[in-house]
């Protein structure tokens, strides 16, 4: 049977849907019987969701102005 450690080592492949049908079935069986791994899997999924919601990096005003000016200039050049 799949050990807890092995399951944890490959948990992302399960979460990302990269396992074959048979491997997936094995993990599912384990999760059905093992509350610790079930909890781990849930927490890993929560963690991934959390990372996706971290505040986004914001551009500095200086960069924004520079790049937008660049666009404006390019558009004017095109018209002339």
């Amino acid at each position, binding site marked *: 049977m799949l050990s807890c*450690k092995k399951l944890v080592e490959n948990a992302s492949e399960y979460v990302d849907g990269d396992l074959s049908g048979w491997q997936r079935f094995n993990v599912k069986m384990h999760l059905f019987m093992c509350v610790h791994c079930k909890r781990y899997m849930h927490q890993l999924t929560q*963690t991934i969701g*959390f990372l*996706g919601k*971290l505040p*986004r990096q914001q551009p500095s005003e200086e*960069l924004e102005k520079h790049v*937008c000016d660049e*666009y404006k200039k390019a558009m004017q050049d095109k018209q002339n």
Partner: protein
Amino acid sequence: MTATKRNDGLPDEAALVKGLLNNDQLLFNKVFKAYYSPMYAVAYSIVGNAIADEVVQEAWVSAIRALPKFEGRSALKSWLIRITANEAKTRLRKESRSVSLDAVNESWATDPRFDNKGHWNDANPEWDAASPDDLLSADELKDCVEKHMEHLPDNQKQILNLRDVGGLAMDEICNILEVSSSNARVLLHRARDKMQQVVAHFQRTGKC
């Protein structure tokens, strides 16, 4: 191109490109803001924090110049990300620095969470927070996770940033960083697993 639902508040691809070619400055500003975060993540992962913004700027200058030739074979966002990655790599060659990605050497062998039969040593307690949003409500946890991300090995940090924070597709990431997909998957999971432990520790102790 896969038809994913847009969640960046921008018009659909065709309208987007048309608007940008027609001097729609308001739209350009929106695009710049919407794609800053993934472009920054790519630049950061290749050249590091110090010159990531310069790379984003250079990438935009190139992109604006190349825009009339944009053929729409890929999404605008993927196209911008490719330009950013190229810009960053050129920059890296100029400064002849390099970030090592190949070492996948850290081992799982002695993971203290498991006994020698691979069973859990201690039960992992349940978390009080039910969802990622609940987790986010704790500012200290946010700071704590960011601090630990900073301390990840470079290669793990890069991939975690691009995939889970920046939301790039795995094959895009493998192209940008020139790693095999199996290596990338291992590195990504190591990083995620570590972050799970950081959150678990915080949930258990209330401390970072």
